[in-house]
């Protein structure tokens, strides 16, 4: 029987994105998740992970970000926990798409994409830890890995 859940830790450095991708691929293969869903989930996880790296830590110490991936009842769930400064991505305002090109910024786009691709995103701060729960319905008719 395949495990419904995996947990791993990523260090607070960008090169860990490779490991994030590898872990997700292995998990997705085991659960035959559709390719498009894997792409979208990978993007959501990367956007949140890089936000933690950019805004979460004022020191130069090593920190570990805990990630749990699970599948239950056609739903993919990712839980990301970090000990950075409080950061609630669900409170980030939507980017302004109407402004001219010269004023367009990429800030906020990651969260915008994440909101689009996920079915829900829930944030809580508990015991000095940011906990973000991402949920996405899996399209069981789509092509798997």
């Amino acid at each position: 029987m395949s495990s419904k859940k995996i947990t791993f830790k990523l260090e607070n450095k960008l090169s860990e994105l490779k490991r994030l991708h590898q872990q997700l691929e292995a998990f997705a293969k085991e659960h035959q998740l559709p390719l498009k869903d894997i792409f979208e989930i990978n993007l959501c996880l990367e956007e949140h992970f890089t936000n933690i790296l950019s805004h979460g830590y004022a020191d130069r110490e090593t920190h570990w970000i805990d990630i749990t991936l699970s599948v239950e009842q056609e739903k993919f769930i990712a839980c990301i926990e970090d000990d950075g400064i409080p950061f609630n991505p669900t409170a980030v305002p939507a980017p302004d798409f109407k402004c001219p090109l010269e004023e367009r910024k990429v800030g906020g786009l990651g969260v915008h994409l994440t909101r689009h691709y996920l079915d829900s995103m829930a944030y809580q701060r508990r015991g000095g830890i940011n906990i973000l729960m991402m949920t996405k319905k899996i399209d069981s008719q789509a092509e798997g890995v």
Partner: protein
Amino acid sequence: MQIKEEKQNAVHIFRLDGRLDSNTSPVFEEKVSDAIAKGAKQMVIDFEKLEYLSSAGLRVILKTTKDLKRLEGKLVLCSMADYVREVFEISGFDSFLPITATRDDALKKF
């Protein structure tokens, strides 16, 4: 990620192979800046072999668009997988960037 570059007349073409994420996009950004510094004003980015991109990739594309516009140049993107194109659409980038189905179509835009 692998980045291949070639020139077709005055058009500088980048072919991206692999993943354009927060980890790899600085390398691409540097190559684009080099090309612009050497006089490239008309540019095509071919996404045929691109498997993945995140907002870090969009950031480089936006910067390139602005830089080329300032020089009265132009950027055209081509050959994207549907799910990659969707990222551009959700971000509203398709409103200011020409995206074509094939590389030949992209070259006709100049």
